[in-house]
C-alpha cells in the first residue's frame, strides 16, 4: 500500500517539477519511496546524532545550520541542495567527501546513521525500518506531499 502511494507521488512530482538529469534518471528507473514514507528509525537517528556530533558538528554546527565554510543541512538549504535527488546520491556524496579532513573514514553503517539524523533534523517521519545499504537509490528527497500542487 505504502509502496503504491509512493509510486503515485513520484509520478506527481515528476510531472510537477522539472528535475535534473541525475534526478530524472533516478525517478524514472528506480525510485519507489520518498523520505516521507518513514524510511529510518528513531534509534538510528539517535545513533547518528552521536556520530554527527563527533564528526560533523565542528563544521556544520550542532544545530546543522552550517558555518563559515559549510552549508546548512536543514530547512531551505537542505531542500535546495538535495531536493529531487535520492538518498543514494546524498549518501554517496557524504561517504566520498566527508568529513573533509578524513573523507571516507567512517563505516557505511555510521554514514547511514548520520543520514538518518539529518532526515530527523529535517522533520521527515520515522518508521519501522532502518536505512539499509540497499535501496537508498530508491528513496527520493522531496517536498512534503501536502505541499504538492
Amino acid at each position, binding site marked *: 500500500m505504502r509502496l503504491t502511494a509512493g509510486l503515485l507521488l513520484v509520478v506527481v512530482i515528476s510531472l510537477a517539477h522539472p528535475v535534473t538529469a541525475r534526478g530524472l534518471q533516478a525517478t524514472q528507473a528506480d525510485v519507489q519511496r520518498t523520505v516521507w514514507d518513514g524510511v529510518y528509525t528513531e534509534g538510528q537517528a539517535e545513533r547518528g546524532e552521536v556520530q554527527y556530533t563527533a564528526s560533523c558538528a565542528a563544521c556544520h554546527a550542532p544545530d546543522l545550520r552550517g558555518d563559515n565554510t559549510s*552549508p546548512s543541512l536543514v530547512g531551505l538549504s537542505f531542500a535546495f541542495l538535495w531536493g529531487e535527488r535520492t538518498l543514494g546520491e546524498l549518501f554517496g556524496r557524504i561517504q566520498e567527501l566527508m568529513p573533509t*579532513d578524513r573523507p571516507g573514514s567512517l563505516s557505511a553503517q555510521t554514514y547511514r546513521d548520520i543520514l538518518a539524523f539529518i532526515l530527523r533534523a529535517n522533520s521527515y517521519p520515522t518508521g519501522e525500518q532502518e536505512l539499509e545499504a540497499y535501496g537508498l537509490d530508491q528513496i527520493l528527497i522531496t517536498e512534503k506531499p501536502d505541499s504538492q500542487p
Partner: protein
Amino acid sequence: MVRLIVRSLVSVSLAVLLSSPGLMAHGLMSPGLIAPGLVAPDLIAPDFAVQVTDFRPVTEEMLRNPAPGDWLNFRRTDDAWGYSPLDEINRDNVGQLQLVWSWAMDESGAQEATPLVYDGIMYLPNPQDVIQALDAATGDLLWEYRPERDPDARRGGIGAQKNIAIYDDKIFGTTHQAHIVALDARTGEVVWDTQTADPSLGYRYSAGPIVARGTVIAGITGCDRYKEDICFLTGLDAETGEEKWRTSSIALPGGPGGDTWGDLPLEFRAGSDMWMTGSYDPDANLVYWGTAQAKPWARSVRGTDGDALYTNSTLAVNPDTGELVWYYQHLPGETNDMDDGFENILIDVAGQPSLFKMGKLAILWQLNRETGAFIRATDLGYQNIVDVDPETGEVTYLRAPEIGVEMTMCPSTSGFKSWRAMAYSPETNALYIPMTLNCEIATFGPIERVIGGGGTGPVRRADYRHPDAGDALGEFHALDITTGETLWRHRTRTPINTAALTTAGGVVFVGDFDRYVYAFDEATGDILWQTRLATSAQGFPVTYLANGKQYMAVPAGTGGGSWAGLIPRELIPEIRRPDHGNAIYVFALPDRR
C-alpha cells in the same frame, strides 16, 4: 636552558565575563551578550617537569626588530614578509638538508600552525588551542598548555590555530571558545584569560593575536550566522587582559557607511570575519587587518546590493585606541565568496609605503599603507569573475549569482589564494605566492532570514580543472612587484599547501598536498632540494637559529579547508594522503666534522 620543577596541578577559574565599559561605549555589544552562567572550563597546568629558564622578557624593540635567529611574530616581522635574514642554509648547500627532529602534534583539529622561536625555544600552536614549548634544537618538550574541554561546549570550527604571539614574559593565544589567553612563557601557566564573545553563538578565533605597544590585538570569526551582534577586532591590555577597545568590522545602521547594507537591520549584517592576523607599521602606528566577505555570500541571497562595509576590506586601525583610521574595500558588495581577508604585506616600493594583499581572485592589490589610497592592481589572469581597472582599482562584476541559476566561475569558492601566506624577498623584489587553480559550476541557493539562520547560503557546486592549468592543481608563483611580471612559476599536481618562506640564502621553501616540501632557487625557480613527509605539508614554515645553527621547520597535517579537502578529493582522487599525522618537521645541514 631547562630545569626540573615539581609537578603541579593548578585549576584556574576562568569565569571571566565581559564587563568592560568600553564595549558598551562603542555600542557594539548589548548587555547580556554572554549567556548567563557561561563558565569557561578549568585549565590543567603542565603536568610534566621542565620549564624554560633564563628567560629574557621580550621588549617592544625586540618585537619590532627581531634578532636574525628568532621568529618572533606571525610572519617573523611586523611587515609580514615571511622572510629570514639567515643564510647558513643557502642555494649552494640546501641540497644537504637533513631531518633533525620531528614532533607529533594534537590530532583533534586542522593543522595551520606557525611556530614562534625565541632564544632557542619553539612555542608551537597546536590545533584546538594547545600550545607547547619545545627545545628548538632537539624537540624536547618543556611545557604544554592544554585547556580542558567542556564536553557540553560547542566545538568551534575546524580547530585551526594559525599563530600565537609573544611579548614581555608571556605567550598569547586565542581559542575556539572565544577566549584570549596569556601564558607564562617560562611555565605555560595561565596568567590571564579573557572571554570576548559567546561561543554558543558560533564566535571563536582561528587566527591568533599580534602585540603592538602593549596591546594584544585579535580579530574574531564565526560571524556568519544571523545574531544580535556582529564581528569585531579587540585590543586587550597585555599585562592584565582587560579589554581596552573593540572595533566593529561591520558598518552599523545609522553610523558611517551604515547605508551600504541597505535597510538590513544589525542582526542581518553578517560576515566580515577575521581569519588571518594583522600586520603592524610602527612608524604609522597602524595595524592592518583583512576582513572576510559578507554573509550570505551572494548579494541576491543576503538581500542587499550594497557594498556591505567593512566586509572584504583592509582595515587600518590605531592599536592604542581601536580607531578605524582608514579602510579600503577590495571588492565592494562581493557576491561569489571571493574574500580578501588574508595577510597584509608591508613593503616600501619606490618611496611609496605600500601594503600588498592578494585574495581568492589572485588579484594583487597595492595600497598606500599610510592613507589607504589605491596604487595598483595586478590580476594574475586566472579569474573570470570581475574586471578590475589596474589604474583605479574599480571593479566591475562579470558574473554575479542569482538564486537557482547555474553559473560557472573561476576560481571555485576555494579561491586561487587562501590562508597559505605569500612571502617577500628583498633580493628579488618578488612575492612568492602559494596557489591552487580550479573552477566551479555553481548554483547559489536561498537561506532563512531569521535569527540563527543565514550563514554562507547553500551552493550546489561541482569543481573542475582550470582550463589554463592542464593536469596541475597547484602553482607556486613568483611575481616581481616592481614590474607586475611573473618571475617564474612552478606547477604541481596537487595544491601548494603551505605558506611560503623566503630566506637571505636565496632559497624559498614551500610544501604541497602531496606531502612534498621544496626548496627553490628564488631567482630561477629551480628545485634545489625536496623531501616527503608523512602527510600533507600544511601550515607556515619558519627558519631560526638554535645554539648558533640554522634550522628550517615545516608543519604537516590534515584539515586545512577545501584546498586540502574537497578540491584534491574531487579533482585528483588518485592522490591520497593519510587522514592524520599533524606534526612539525625540523631540518638542518649536517654538522661539520
